[in-house]
Protein backbone atom coordinates (compact mmCIF):
# COMPACT_ATOMS: atom_id res chain seq x y z
CA UNK A 1 0.00 0.00 0.00
CA UNK A 2 1.30 3.46 -0.85
CA UNK A 3 2.51 5.59 2.01
CA UNK A 4 0.23 8.57 2.60
CA UNK A 5 2.84 10.14 4.88
CA UNK A 6 6.62 9.78 4.61
CA UNK A 7 9.07 11.42 7.00
CA UNK A 8 12.77 11.22 6.26
CA UNK A 9 15.32 12.43 8.82
CA UNK A 10 12.94 15.11 9.95
CA UNK A 11 14.13 17.40 12.71
CA UNK A 12 12.32 20.27 14.37
CA UNK A 13 13.93 22.98 16.43
CA UNK A 14 12.01 25.86 17.99
CA UNK A 15 14.23 28.92 18.16
CA UNK A 16 17.85 28.16 19.02
CA UNK A 17 17.52 25.44 21.65
CA UNK A 18 18.00 21.71 21.25
CA UNK A 19 15.90 19.88 18.67
CA UNK A 20 12.40 19.15 19.92
CA UNK A 21 12.15 16.32 17.41
CA UNK A 22 15.12 14.55 15.85
CA UNK A 23 15.73 12.04 13.09
CA UNK A 24 12.13 11.08 12.46
CA UNK A 25 11.92 8.59 9.63
CA UNK A 26 8.74 6.67 9.11
CA UNK A 27 5.99 5.95 6.66
CA UNK A 28 2.26 5.71 7.31
CA UNK A 29 0.09 3.51 5.13
CA UNK A 30 -2.95 4.91 3.43
CA UNK A 31 -6.04 3.76 5.29
CA UNK A 32 -4.11 2.94 8.46
CA UNK A 33 -5.06 3.77 12.04
CA UNK A 34 -2.20 5.14 14.13
CA UNK A 35 -1.86 6.09 17.74
CA UNK A 36 0.94 8.44 18.69
CA UNK A 37 1.77 8.17 22.36
CA UNK A 38 4.38 9.48 24.67
CA UNK A 39 4.60 11.51 27.85
CA UNK A 40 3.50 15.08 27.95
CA UNK A 41 6.11 17.31 26.32
CA UNK A 42 7.49 14.51 24.17
CA UNK A 43 6.64 16.39 20.99
CA UNK A 44 3.38 14.78 19.89
CA UNK A 45 1.66 18.07 19.10
CA UNK A 46 4.79 19.30 17.30
CA UNK A 47 4.80 16.22 15.07
CA UNK A 48 1.11 16.59 14.27
CA UNK A 49 1.60 20.27 13.41
CA UNK A 50 4.04 19.26 10.71
CA UNK A 51 1.51 16.71 9.51
CA UNK A 52 -1.29 19.22 9.13
CA UNK A 53 1.04 21.78 7.58
CA UNK A 54 1.02 24.30 10.42
CA UNK A 55 4.76 23.96 10.95
CA UNK A 56 7.68 23.43 8.60
CA UNK A 57 10.45 21.09 9.77
CA UNK A 58 13.90 22.52 10.40
CA UNK A 59 15.44 19.75 8.35
CA UNK A 60 14.56 16.57 6.52
CA UNK A 61 11.81 15.87 4.04
CA UNK A 62 8.09 15.27 4.44
CA UNK A 63 5.97 13.78 1.71
CA UNK A 64 2.23 14.00 1.96
CA UNK A 65 -0.14 12.38 -0.54
CA UNK A 66 2.95 11.61 -2.58
CA UNK A 67 4.29 15.17 -2.78
CA UNK A 68 7.11 16.92 -1.02
CA UNK A 69 5.36 19.50 1.17
CA UNK A 70 8.43 21.11 2.71
CA UNK A 71 9.18 23.11 -0.40
CA UNK A 72 5.55 23.56 -1.38
CA UNK A 73 4.55 27.05 -2.57
CA UNK A 74 2.21 28.90 -0.19
CA UNK A 75 -0.54 29.05 -2.77
CA UNK A 76 -0.67 25.24 -2.94
CA UNK A 77 -1.04 24.73 0.81
CA UNK A 78 -4.84 25.28 0.98
CA UNK A 79 -5.43 22.43 -1.47
CA UNK A 80 -3.47 20.05 0.76
CA UNK A 81 -5.03 21.30 3.96
CA UNK A 82 -8.53 20.67 2.65
CA UNK A 83 -7.67 16.97 2.40
CA UNK A 84 -6.75 16.84 6.09
CA UNK A 85 -9.15 16.98 9.05
CA UNK A 86 -7.79 18.31 12.32
CA UNK A 87 -8.81 18.11 15.95
CA UNK A 88 -6.68 20.57 17.90
CA UNK A 89 -5.65 19.87 21.44
CA UNK A 90 -7.20 23.22 22.43
CA UNK A 91 -10.21 22.74 20.06
CA UNK A 92 -9.85 26.19 18.45
CA UNK A 93 -13.55 26.59 17.90
CA UNK A 94 -14.61 30.00 16.70
CA UNK A 95 -16.32 31.54 19.73
CA UNK A 96 -18.78 33.79 17.91
CA UNK A 97 -20.09 31.06 15.65
CA UNK A 98 -22.75 28.54 16.69
CA UNK A 99 -21.93 24.84 16.93
CA UNK A 100 -23.65 24.42 13.58
CA UNK A 101 -21.59 27.14 11.90
CA UNK A 102 -18.37 25.86 13.45
CA UNK A 103 -19.00 22.41 12.05
CA UNK A 104 -20.03 23.86 8.68
CA UNK A 105 -16.82 25.91 8.44
CA UNK A 106 -14.71 23.44 6.41
CA UNK A 107 -17.58 22.93 3.97
CA UNK A 108 -18.07 26.67 3.54
CA UNK A 109 -14.35 27.16 3.00
CA UNK A 110 -14.45 24.44 0.37
CA UNK A 111 -17.29 26.33 -1.32
CA UNK A 112 -20.08 23.85 -0.64
CA UNK A 113 -23.50 25.30 -1.42
CA UNK A 114 -25.52 26.43 1.62
CA UNK A 115 -28.41 24.15 0.64
CA UNK A 116 -26.12 21.13 0.46
CA UNK A 117 -24.49 21.54 3.83
CA UNK A 118 -27.49 21.64 6.17
CA UNK A 119 -28.19 17.90 6.14
CA UNK A 120 -24.62 16.69 6.64
CA UNK A 121 -24.02 19.19 9.43
CA UNK A 122 -27.22 18.11 11.21
CA UNK A 123 -26.29 14.46 10.82
CA UNK A 124 -22.85 15.14 12.22
CA UNK A 125 -24.33 17.04 15.17
CA UNK A 126 -26.57 14.07 15.90
CA UNK A 127 -23.66 11.66 15.60
CA UNK A 128 -21.67 13.43 18.30
CA UNK A 129 -24.81 13.73 20.43
CA UNK A 130 -25.27 17.48 20.08
CA UNK A 131 -28.41 17.64 17.92
CA UNK A 132 -30.12 19.92 20.42
CA UNK A 133 -27.12 22.27 20.79
CA UNK A 134 -26.88 23.30 17.14
CA UNK A 135 -27.26 27.00 17.83
CA UNK A 136 -25.17 27.10 21.02
CA UNK A 137 -21.95 29.05 20.93
CA UNK A 138 -18.76 27.33 22.14
CA UNK A 139 -18.37 29.42 25.33
CA UNK A 140 -21.74 28.10 26.49
CA UNK A 141 -20.73 24.47 25.88
CA UNK A 142 -18.93 22.20 28.35
CA UNK A 143 -15.37 21.09 27.61
CA UNK A 144 -16.54 17.71 26.42
CA UNK A 145 -19.22 19.24 24.20
CA UNK A 146 -16.67 21.61 22.68
CA UNK A 147 -14.42 18.67 21.99
CA UNK A 148 -17.21 16.87 20.17
CA UNK A 149 -17.92 19.95 18.06
CA UNK A 150 -14.20 20.07 17.23
CA UNK A 151 -14.28 16.42 16.18
CA UNK A 152 -17.42 16.90 14.12
CA UNK A 153 -15.77 19.84 12.38
CA UNK A 154 -12.70 17.74 11.62
CA UNK A 155 -14.58 14.87 10.02
CA UNK A 156 -17.45 16.68 8.27
CA UNK A 157 -15.46 17.14 5.06
CA UNK A 158 -14.66 13.42 4.78
CA UNK A 159 -10.90 14.11 4.87
CA UNK A 160 -8.42 11.64 3.43
CA UNK A 161 -6.42 11.96 6.61
CA UNK A 162 -7.64 12.80 10.10
CA UNK A 163 -5.17 14.17 12.62
CA UNK A 164 -6.46 14.36 16.19
CA UNK A 165 -4.50 15.75 19.13
CA UNK A 166 -5.71 14.33 22.46
CA UNK A 167 -9.28 14.13 21.14
CA UNK A 168 -10.64 12.41 24.22
CA UNK A 169 -8.88 14.50 26.81
CA UNK A 170 -12.01 16.18 28.08
CA UNK A 171 -14.69 13.52 27.81
CA UNK A 172 -15.73 10.72 30.09
CA UNK A 173 -14.65 7.15 29.20
CA UNK A 174 -18.02 6.32 27.71
CA UNK A 175 -17.93 9.29 25.33
CA UNK A 176 -14.28 8.53 24.59
CA UNK A 177 -15.27 5.05 23.48
CA UNK A 178 -18.02 6.49 21.29
CA UNK A 179 -15.67 8.96 19.65
CA UNK A 180 -13.08 6.28 18.99
CA UNK A 181 -15.85 4.21 17.46
CA UNK A 182 -16.58 7.18 15.20
CA UNK A 183 -12.93 7.33 14.15
CA UNK A 184 -12.95 3.61 13.54
CA UNK A 185 -16.02 3.88 11.34
CA UNK A 186 -14.35 6.66 9.40
CA UNK A 187 -11.24 4.52 9.08
CA UNK A 188 -13.32 1.71 7.64
CA UNK A 189 -14.50 4.15 4.97
CA UNK A 190 -10.86 4.72 3.99
CA UNK A 191 -9.68 7.69 6.04
CA UNK A 192 -6.18 7.44 7.45
CA UNK A 193 -6.37 8.24 11.17
CA UNK A 194 -3.60 9.56 13.40
CA UNK A 195 -4.52 10.08 17.04
CA UNK A 196 -2.09 11.53 19.55
CA UNK A 197 -2.83 10.57 23.13
CA UNK A 198 -1.03 10.08 26.39
CA UNK A 199 -3.86 7.83 27.60
CA UNK A 200 -2.58 4.27 27.17
CA UNK A 201 -6.00 2.83 27.97
CA UNK A 202 -7.23 4.20 24.70
CA UNK A 203 -4.78 2.12 22.69
CA UNK A 204 -6.57 -1.17 23.28
CA UNK A 205 -9.86 0.24 22.01
CA UNK A 206 -9.02 -0.03 18.34
CA UNK A 207 -7.98 -3.52 17.40
CA UNK A 208 -6.38 -2.68 14.09
CA UNK A 209 -4.37 0.28 15.33
CA UNK A 210 -0.61 0.75 15.10
CA UNK A 211 1.15 2.49 17.93
CA UNK A 212 4.02 4.95 17.61
CA UNK A 213 5.77 6.15 20.70
CA UNK A 214 7.58 9.41 21.09
CA UNK A 215 10.04 9.92 23.89
CA UNK A 216 12.30 12.92 24.30
CA UNK A 217 12.00 13.83 20.65
CA UNK A 218 12.80 10.37 19.33
CA UNK A 219 10.37 8.01 17.68
CA UNK A 220 10.53 4.48 18.99
CA UNK A 221 9.78 1.78 16.50
CA UNK A 222 7.60 3.69 14.10
CA UNK A 223 6.59 0.61 12.18
CA UNK A 224 4.19 -0.84 14.68
CA UNK A 225 6.41 -2.85 16.99
CA UNK A 226 4.76 -1.16 19.92
CA UNK A 227 1.36 -2.23 18.80
CA UNK A 228 -0.97 -2.57 21.69
CA UNK A 229 -1.58 -5.42 22.12
CA UNK A 230 1.28 -6.71 20.01
CA UNK A 231 0.37 -8.66 16.93
CA UNK A 232 2.49 -11.48 15.53
CA UNK A 233 2.80 -9.85 12.12
CA UNK A 234 3.73 -6.43 13.52
CA UNK A 235 5.95 -4.27 11.42
CA UNK A 236 4.95 -5.82 8.12
CA UNK A 237 2.61 -3.06 7.05
CA UNK A 238 3.55 0.58 6.97
CA UNK A 239 7.17 -0.22 6.17
CA UNK A 240 8.41 1.78 3.18
Amino acid sequence: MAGIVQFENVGLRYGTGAETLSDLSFSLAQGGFYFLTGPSGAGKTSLLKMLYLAQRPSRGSIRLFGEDVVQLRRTRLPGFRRRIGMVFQDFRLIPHLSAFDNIALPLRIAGVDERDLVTPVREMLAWVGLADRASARPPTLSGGEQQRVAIARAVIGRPEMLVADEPTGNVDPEMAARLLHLFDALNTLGTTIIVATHDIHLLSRVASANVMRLDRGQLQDPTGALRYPPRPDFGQEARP
Partner: protein
Amino acid sequence: MMMFGASKADRRLLPEGRLAGPMPWVIAIMMFLTALAAAGGLAMESAAARLGADLGRQVTVQIVLADPAKRDQEADAARQLLARQQGVTEVRRIGNDEMQALLRPWLGDAGLERDLPLPAMIDVSLSRAGRDRLGAITNALRTAAPHARLDDHASWLAPLVSLIRALGLLAGGIVALMVGATAAAVVLAARTALNTHRQTIDVMHLMGATDVQIARLFQRRIALDALFGGVLGLVGAVGVILLLGERMREIGSELVGSIALPWTAWIVLLALPLLAGVLALTVARITVQRALGRTL
Protein backbone atom coordinates in the same frame (compact mmCIF):
# COMPACT_ATOMS: atom_id res chain seq x y z
CA MET B 1 -23.12 45.19 -3.50
CA MET B 2 -21.18 42.64 -5.53
CA MET B 3 -18.14 44.84 -5.85
CA PHE B 4 -17.44 44.42 -2.17
CA GLY B 5 -17.51 40.70 -2.93
CA ALA B 6 -18.31 38.32 -0.13
CA SER B 7 -21.05 35.78 -0.40
CA LYS B 8 -23.65 35.44 2.32
CA ALA B 9 -21.88 32.28 3.43
CA ASP B 10 -18.56 34.09 3.73
CA ARG B 11 -20.19 36.73 5.84
CA ARG B 12 -21.09 34.14 8.45
CA LEU B 13 -17.44 33.42 9.11
CA LEU B 14 -16.80 36.57 11.10
CA PRO B 15 -19.17 38.17 13.59
CA GLU B 16 -21.67 40.42 11.87
CA GLY B 17 -21.81 44.13 12.36
CA ARG B 18 -19.37 46.95 11.90
CA LEU B 19 -15.78 46.59 12.88
CA ALA B 20 -15.16 48.16 16.20
CA GLY B 21 -12.85 51.13 16.32
CA PRO B 22 -12.57 54.71 15.29
CA MET B 23 -11.89 54.21 11.58
CA PRO B 24 -15.35 55.21 10.29
CA TRP B 25 -15.21 58.40 12.35
CA VAL B 26 -11.67 59.21 11.28
CA ILE B 27 -12.75 58.74 7.69
CA ALA B 28 -15.83 60.90 8.27
CA ILE B 29 -13.63 63.75 9.51
CA MET B 30 -11.21 63.32 6.65
CA MET B 31 -14.00 63.14 4.13
CA PHE B 32 -15.43 66.37 5.55
CA LEU B 33 -12.11 68.16 5.09
CA THR B 34 -11.44 66.52 1.73
CA ALA B 35 -14.83 67.56 0.38
CA LEU B 36 -14.32 71.14 1.55
CA ALA B 37 -10.85 71.28 0.02
CA ALA B 38 -12.09 69.67 -3.18
CA ALA B 39 -15.06 72.05 -3.40
CA GLY B 40 -12.75 75.01 -2.79
CA GLY B 41 -10.30 73.77 -5.38
CA LEU B 42 -12.97 73.12 -7.97
CA ALA B 43 -14.60 76.51 -7.36
CA MET B 44 -11.20 78.21 -7.70
CA GLU B 45 -10.50 76.31 -10.86
CA SER B 46 -13.78 77.30 -12.47
CA ALA B 47 -13.41 80.93 -11.34
CA ALA B 48 -9.89 81.05 -12.74
CA ALA B 49 -11.10 79.54 -15.98
CA ARG B 50 -13.90 82.09 -16.27
CA LEU B 51 -11.69 85.07 -15.39
CA GLY B 52 -8.93 83.68 -17.60
CA ALA B 53 -11.32 83.50 -20.53
CA ASP B 54 -12.29 87.14 -20.03
CA LEU B 55 -8.72 88.08 -19.28
CA GLY B 56 -7.56 90.79 -21.62
CA ARG B 57 -10.70 90.67 -23.73
CA GLN B 58 -11.75 93.91 -22.10
CA VAL B 59 -9.83 97.16 -22.36
CA THR B 60 -10.94 100.68 -21.46
CA VAL B 61 -9.84 103.78 -23.30
CA GLN B 62 -9.76 107.04 -21.31
CA ILE B 63 -9.40 110.47 -22.78
CA VAL B 64 -8.43 113.02 -20.19
CA LEU B 65 -8.86 116.54 -21.57
CA ALA B 66 -10.14 119.56 -19.75
CA ASP B 67 -11.82 121.07 -22.81
CA PRO B 68 -15.13 119.26 -23.34
CA ALA B 69 -15.27 119.97 -27.07
CA LYS B 70 -11.78 118.66 -27.78
CA ARG B 71 -12.50 115.74 -25.52
CA ASP B 72 -15.60 114.77 -27.45
CA GLN B 73 -13.76 115.21 -30.70
CA GLU B 74 -10.93 112.88 -29.71
CA ALA B 75 -13.41 110.44 -28.24
CA ASP B 76 -15.30 110.26 -31.53
CA ALA B 77 -12.06 109.83 -33.45
CA ALA B 78 -10.95 107.07 -31.11
CA ARG B 79 -14.30 105.33 -31.31
CA GLN B 80 -14.39 105.36 -35.08
CA LEU B 81 -10.80 104.14 -35.32
CA LEU B 82 -11.40 101.35 -32.84
CA ALA B 83 -14.58 100.23 -34.58
CA ARG B 84 -12.59 99.82 -37.77
CA GLN B 85 -9.83 97.79 -36.15
CA GLN B 86 -9.59 94.10 -36.85
CA GLY B 87 -10.24 91.99 -33.76
CA VAL B 88 -12.39 94.57 -32.01
CA THR B 89 -15.80 93.07 -31.40
CA GLU B 90 -17.51 95.90 -29.57
CA VAL B 91 -16.91 99.57 -28.91
CA ARG B 92 -19.13 101.54 -26.55
CA ARG B 93 -18.73 105.03 -25.20
CA ILE B 94 -19.85 105.26 -21.62
CA GLY B 95 -22.40 108.05 -21.57
CA ASN B 96 -22.20 111.04 -19.26
CA ASP B 97 -25.26 109.97 -17.30
CA GLU B 98 -23.80 106.55 -16.72
CA MET B 99 -20.53 108.08 -15.53
CA GLN B 100 -22.30 110.37 -13.15
CA ALA B 101 -24.29 107.51 -11.77
CA LEU B 102 -21.07 105.65 -11.13
CA LEU B 103 -19.52 108.63 -9.38
CA ARG B 104 -22.49 109.87 -7.41
CA PRO B 105 -21.91 107.58 -4.43
CA TRP B 106 -18.46 109.08 -3.97
CA LEU B 107 -18.93 112.74 -4.89
CA GLY B 108 -22.56 113.33 -4.07
CA ASP B 109 -24.97 115.47 -6.11
CA ALA B 110 -23.19 118.65 -5.07
CA GLY B 111 -19.86 117.36 -6.31
CA LEU B 112 -21.32 116.48 -9.66
CA GLU B 113 -23.16 119.76 -10.13
CA ARG B 114 -19.96 121.67 -10.42
CA ASP B 115 -18.65 121.39 -13.88
CA LEU B 116 -16.42 118.45 -13.11
CA PRO B 117 -14.10 117.56 -15.99
CA LEU B 118 -14.89 113.89 -16.35
CA PRO B 119 -12.75 111.91 -18.77
CA ALA B 120 -14.39 110.31 -21.75
CA MET B 121 -14.44 106.54 -21.39
CA ILE B 122 -14.81 103.88 -24.06
CA ASP B 123 -15.31 100.18 -23.31
CA VAL B 124 -13.66 97.97 -25.90
CA SER B 125 -14.19 94.22 -26.29
CA LEU B 126 -11.57 92.27 -28.18
CA SER B 127 -11.58 88.89 -29.87
CA ARG B 128 -8.67 86.57 -29.23
CA ALA B 129 -7.03 87.82 -32.41
CA GLY B 130 -7.65 91.41 -31.31
CA ARG B 131 -5.94 90.65 -28.03
CA ASP B 132 -2.86 89.52 -29.93
CA ARG B 133 -2.62 92.78 -31.88
CA LEU B 134 -3.29 95.06 -28.94
CA GLY B 135 0.07 96.77 -29.57
CA ALA B 136 -0.90 97.74 -33.13
CA ILE B 137 -4.28 98.98 -31.93
CA THR B 138 -2.59 101.09 -29.24
CA ASN B 139 -0.25 102.65 -31.79
CA ALA B 140 -3.08 103.46 -34.18
CA LEU B 141 -5.05 104.94 -31.30
CA ARG B 142 -2.18 107.22 -30.32
CA THR B 143 -2.14 108.93 -33.72
CA ALA B 144 -5.92 109.30 -33.91
CA ALA B 145 -6.37 110.52 -30.34
CA PRO B 146 -3.13 111.72 -28.74
CA HIS B 147 -4.69 112.09 -25.30
CA ALA B 148 -6.13 108.58 -25.18
CA ARG B 149 -4.88 106.23 -22.54
CA LEU B 150 -5.51 102.52 -22.86
CA ASP B 151 -6.26 100.57 -19.71
CA ASP B 152 -5.65 96.82 -20.04
CA HIS B 153 -7.78 94.80 -17.58
CA ALA B 154 -5.31 91.94 -17.93
CA SER B 155 -2.68 93.89 -16.07
CA TRP B 156 -4.65 93.79 -12.84
CA LEU B 157 -6.60 90.55 -13.43
CA ALA B 158 -3.54 88.44 -14.18
CA PRO B 159 -2.11 88.35 -10.62
CA LEU B 160 -5.59 87.60 -9.29
CA VAL B 161 -6.02 84.71 -11.68
CA SER B 162 -2.62 83.30 -10.78
CA LEU B 163 -3.46 83.65 -7.08
CA ILE B 164 -6.71 81.78 -7.63
CA ARG B 165 -4.86 79.10 -9.62
CA ALA B 166 -2.35 78.73 -6.78
CA LEU B 167 -5.16 78.33 -4.24
CA GLY B 168 -6.72 75.70 -6.50
CA LEU B 169 -3.43 73.79 -6.63
CA LEU B 170 -3.12 74.01 -2.86
CA ALA B 171 -6.59 72.52 -2.51
CA GLY B 172 -5.57 69.72 -4.88
CA GLY B 173 -2.50 69.05 -2.73
CA ILE B 174 -4.65 68.90 0.40
CA VAL B 175 -6.97 66.40 -1.28
CA ALA B 176 -3.96 64.24 -2.22
CA LEU B 177 -2.70 64.34 1.38
CA MET B 178 -6.15 63.36 2.64
CA VAL B 179 -6.21 60.38 0.30
CA GLY B 180 -2.89 59.30 1.77
CA ALA B 181 -4.14 59.77 5.34
CA THR B 182 -7.33 57.83 4.56
CA ALA B 183 -5.27 54.96 3.16
CA ALA B 184 -3.13 54.99 6.31
CA ALA B 185 -6.25 54.87 8.51
CA VAL B 186 -7.48 51.88 6.52
CA VAL B 187 -4.14 50.10 6.91
CA LEU B 188 -4.32 50.59 10.68
CA ALA B 189 -7.93 49.42 10.80
CA ALA B 190 -7.12 46.34 8.72
CA ARG B 191 -4.18 45.45 10.97
CA THR B 192 -6.31 45.88 14.08
CA ALA B 193 -9.02 43.71 12.58
CA LEU B 194 -6.46 41.06 11.68
CA ASN B 195 -5.15 41.00 15.24
CA THR B 196 -8.65 40.88 16.70
CA HIS B 197 -9.54 37.92 14.52
CA ARG B 198 -6.14 36.24 14.56
CA GLN B 199 -7.51 32.98 16.01
CA THR B 200 -10.32 32.74 13.51
CA ILE B 201 -7.93 33.42 10.65
CA ASP B 202 -5.45 30.81 11.84
CA VAL B 203 -8.15 28.17 12.08
CA MET B 204 -9.56 29.05 8.68
CA HIS B 205 -6.08 28.92 7.22
CA LEU B 206 -5.46 25.46 8.62
CA MET B 207 -8.74 24.30 7.12
CA GLY B 208 -7.56 25.37 3.72
CA ALA B 209 -8.97 28.87 3.35
CA THR B 210 -7.03 30.86 0.78
CA ASP B 211 -5.64 34.34 1.41
CA VAL B 212 -8.20 35.72 -1.03
CA GLN B 213 -11.06 34.13 0.89
CA ILE B 214 -9.85 35.62 4.15
CA ALA B 215 -9.10 39.02 2.65
CA ARG B 216 -12.63 39.15 1.24
CA LEU B 217 -14.08 38.92 4.75
CA PHE B 218 -12.17 42.00 5.85
CA GLN B 219 -12.18 44.16 2.77
CA ARG B 220 -15.96 44.11 2.54
CA ARG B 221 -16.46 45.26 6.12
CA ILE B 222 -13.73 47.88 5.97
CA ALA B 223 -15.05 49.22 2.67
CA LEU B 224 -18.58 49.49 4.07
CA ASP B 225 -17.23 51.27 7.14
CA ALA B 226 -15.31 53.67 4.94
CA LEU B 227 -18.40 54.26 2.82
CA PHE B 228 -20.40 55.00 5.95
CA GLY B 229 -17.76 57.44 7.24
CA GLY B 230 -17.45 58.97 3.80
CA VAL B 231 -21.16 59.64 3.42
CA LEU B 232 -21.31 61.12 6.91
CA GLY B 233 -18.39 63.45 6.23
CA LEU B 234 -19.76 64.47 2.87
CA VAL B 235 -23.17 65.35 4.30
CA GLY B 236 -21.44 67.68 6.77
CA ALA B 237 -19.29 69.23 4.07
CA VAL B 238 -22.22 69.80 1.69
CA GLY B 239 -24.06 71.56 4.52
CA VAL B 240 -21.13 73.91 5.04
CA ILE B 241 -20.73 74.52 1.29
CA LEU B 242 -24.41 75.41 0.88
CA LEU B 243 -24.23 77.78 3.86
CA LEU B 244 -21.10 79.47 2.50
CA GLY B 245 -22.75 79.80 -0.91
CA GLU B 246 -25.71 81.52 0.72
CA ARG B 247 -23.40 84.03 2.44
CA MET B 248 -21.51 84.73 -0.78
CA ARG B 249 -24.69 85.43 -2.67
CA GLU B 250 -25.63 87.93 0.05
CA ILE B 251 -22.37 89.80 -0.55
CA GLY B 252 -23.45 90.13 -4.14
CA SER B 253 -20.01 91.03 -5.41
CA GLU B 254 -19.23 90.06 -8.96
CA LEU B 255 -15.80 88.75 -8.02
CA VAL B 256 -17.10 86.62 -5.13
CA GLY B 257 -20.02 85.62 -7.28
CA SER B 258 -17.71 84.14 -9.85
CA ILE B 259 -16.62 81.64 -7.19
CA ALA B 260 -19.43 79.17 -7.77
CA LEU B 261 -19.50 75.39 -7.96
CA PRO B 262 -20.16 74.07 -11.44
CA TRP B 263 -22.43 71.01 -11.63
CA THR B 264 -19.49 68.82 -12.58
CA ALA B 265 -17.96 69.67 -9.21
CA TRP B 266 -21.07 68.34 -7.45
CA ILE B 267 -20.66 65.04 -9.26
CA VAL B 268 -17.05 64.87 -8.12
CA LEU B 269 -18.11 65.58 -4.52
CA LEU B 270 -20.84 62.93 -4.57
CA ALA B 271 -18.37 60.40 -5.96
CA LEU B 272 -15.92 61.00 -3.10
CA PRO B 273 -17.46 58.56 -0.55
CA LEU B 274 -17.64 55.88 -3.22
CA LEU B 275 -14.00 56.52 -4.04
CA ALA B 276 -13.22 56.27 -0.32
CA GLY B 277 -15.00 52.91 -0.26
CA VAL B 278 -13.07 51.60 -3.25
CA LEU B 279 -9.81 52.96 -1.85
CA ALA B 280 -10.51 51.25 1.49
CA LEU B 281 -11.39 48.01 -0.29
CA THR B 282 -8.15 48.00 -2.24
CA VAL B 283 -5.91 49.07 0.64
CA ALA B 284 -7.55 46.56 3.01
CA ARG B 285 -7.11 43.73 0.54
CA ILE B 286 -3.44 44.54 -0.02
CA THR B 287 -2.80 44.92 3.73
CA VAL B 288 -4.50 41.64 4.63
CA GLN B 289 -2.90 39.67 1.85
CA ARG B 290 0.55 40.99 2.70
CA ALA B 291 0.06 40.13 6.38
CA LEU B 292 -1.15 36.64 5.50
CA GLY B 293 1.74 36.17 3.09
CA ARG B 294 4.12 36.28 6.05
CA THR B 295 2.41 33.29 7.70
CA LEU B 296 2.77 29.65 6.69
